């Protein structure tokens, strides 16, 4: 008896995931022909609650793309791969305290802030570097123009609330 219930449960979960993935895909399917531009696929994956690194994304996209990349991703290929990702709960989001800890690592003297230059240096030279556009966008929201620094605790608090 319990085995049958388990099976039903999984089916329901999968069905739910399918609908979720379809909705997210449709937001970017501008021509309503079940394809999206490959550049938008990163956004779609992230909008489904995943938080992969650039490297992980790259590997995932290789799975989803056609053998001969066309610049488009088809829904039929995307759905099974993404469903597996959601079922396996891959690429979980980063908890707030870990995020705070990361900023603190970059601020070893515990001042409570990073200067604009420091932020730029870390974000564009370390990890998986930001593009110029990404850097500018982050600076516009994060940097307090008077002190020319980012008070990261406040910044995180602001972003997390906004994220819903």
């Amino acid at each position, binding site marked *: 008896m319990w085995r049958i219930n388990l099976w039903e449960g999984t089916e329901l979960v999968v069905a739910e995931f399918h609908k979720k993935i379809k*909705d997210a895909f449709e937001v970017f399917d501008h021509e309503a022909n079940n394809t999206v531009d490959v550049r938008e696929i990163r956004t779609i994956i992230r909008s489904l609650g995943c938080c992969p690194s650039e490297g992980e994304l790259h590997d995932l996209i290789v799975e989803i793309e056609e053998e001969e990349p066309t610049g488009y991703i088809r829904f039929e290929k995307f759905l099974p791969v993404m469903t597996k990702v959601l079922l396996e709960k891959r690429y979980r989001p980063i908890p707030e*305290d870990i995020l705070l800890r990361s900023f603190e690592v970059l601020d070893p003297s515990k001042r409570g802030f990073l200067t604009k230059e420091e932020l730029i240096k870390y974000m564009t030279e370390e990890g998986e570097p930001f593009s110029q556009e990404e850097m500018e966008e982050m600076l516009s929201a994060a940097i307090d123009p008077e002190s020319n620094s980012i008070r990261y605790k406040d910044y995180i608090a602001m972003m997390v609330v906004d994220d819903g």
Partner: protein
Amino acid sequence: VQSPISIYYHLTFHAEFASFKAAALIQRWYRRYMARLETRRCCTWRIFQSIEYAGQQDHVKLHDFFSYLVDHFTPNSNHESEYDDYESIEVPDNYTGPRLSFPLLPNHATALVEAFRLKQQLHARYVLNLLHETRKHLVQLPNINRVSTCYSEEITVCGDLHGQLDDLIFIFHKNGLPSPERAYVFNGDFVDRGKESVEILMILFAFMLVYPKEFRLNRGNHEDHMVNLRYGLTKEVMHKYKTHGKKILKILQDVFCWLHLATLVDEKVLILHGGVSDMPDLELLAKLDRHKVLTTEVVSCEREGRAGSCPGAGSAPWAPPPGLPRGHRASRSSSIPCSCGPPWGPGAGRCRQQAGPPRAGRRGFRKETISWSFQVVDILWSDPMAQEGCKANTVRGGGCYFGPSVTEQLLQKYNLQFLIRSHERKPEGYEFCHRRKVLTIFSASNYYEVGSNRGAYVKLGPALTPYIVQYQANKETHRLTMRQRISRVEESALRSLWEKLFASSLDLLGEFKKHDADKTGLITLSAWAEAVESVLHLGLPWRMLKPQLVNSSTDNTLEYKSWLEDLAKEQLSRENIQSSLLETLYRNRPNLEAIFRITDSDHSGFISLDEFRQTWKLFSSHMNIDITDDCICDLARSIDLNRDGHIDINEFLEAFRIVEQSSTEGDTSDCPQATNTDNSGCSKPSKR
């Protein structure tokens, strides 16, 4: 107690490359945050689009009703000479606005731009004079306008402006004023929605008179008095010109009909407002009597074969000759097989072949009459699509969707290089499609809301390579971060969506109940999404929007009754008419105004109580709304009526603005209203 993940990270930090890992983590988190923002932006865009298109379809559905109104309330046209009589209009001495004298000189036109920038208003006498001269000028011009880059070195093509004067001023500022060396083509839709349509028209017509060879205007689907009734120009004119507005509207109707249908640059680039069909016939287009197409609204609905009570074929602005059976095309063209099911069924992908060229020799049937006006409809209403083929444009209710091969066909047939069109808003202000053979250019920035989209214009030199310039005319947007921009626009979209949901409360309750067989009062969020879509038909990704529409839902279920109650609390004011009626009226709010303006045929601002009741009864029966006579009387009474049996239109509409205002009054946000919400300085009526 630390979680295993926490501990792992903790340990890792103390290993080598700690800052590398920290940076990578922050970047990962940030990219996800930006992705969520981008998704919200797209969803917001979709909300606006689908509500707008749904609104357009509404209008299409009401077509029969509008036709009836037009027939019964349109004034007879024996007062033709009225609008020619502008010379007797006196301009008072204390008038400080711009003055025009004819023939116009370049500095007059430039002075107009400056005057309007300073928010001055042009006196009705000059408006009428200008329109009169414009008409005289347009009458001599051909349907298809030809421009050459030999004379002007560069040609700038602008798309829809929709009454947004700021964008026009910005374009002239950034690109330069029109001159013999700087040619302009404005590709239709100058008016409606925005609040300064009149000023835009004055500027455009003035430059056209001053530089007839270099300054050209194509007609758009909004250069049409039927469309103007609903989308704002009529209201704007009557508001700004209380005494002479009627005259202005009448001559404007005529002027619109005389606008060019298309412009050809160096015989290589075709510029028109909407698009093309799979039966393009430029020779026919060049020869037809363009001024006979008073409105493409009626024609387009005619073609879809709406079997309705479209009465008095002769008296409607355009109609096929009497004796022509309704929907004839559907049944008689049966020699062409159609694979998409019933030809005129609702929502069916109508096969274009069904609406093919009519057979000759039908009794009382003029072949040319039908064909050519469809050419005009196609040009003004069509949209490109990615799929191959050509099918009826069901979203717009007129024109078609044309695929890449249709474009290819057109270009080859007439030896053209590419097509420039407008008609559709694009987030970046422009978009190429059909392998870069079709360019959509849209010049009204911040169209839905501050920060919603950019505008663009395109320049062509002798090599005819398109060079695109983008902009956002509102200085404010530059100072906002992306996050703030998106929040603002999103709030606006969500407000519209809340309104729509509220207006369908009863239907929604019904649908929710269907999903709650056990009467627990709860439904799953999945069921919620399905129910909402089946009622609203907006085609929105409801699961993506769920966080904004449904408050924290524990364990994936929703108490639907309290959700609906919350909706109502947001929308209803204290003193209101019974909720079902209010919902219905609210749902049809965009239409009410148009209906009233048609009913008020002499533009006096008053309609009689009888006309009001008649109109309302007819409206309810067309919309299958069950409203008793008593309800209508109650409604009339609750609005302040002068005892002389007339209803002041403005008071009626104010009643709805009040409801809207009081529900947003408690709103602590300072978001500006969307540009298509009416708030032309409305003041509350004194007796309340």
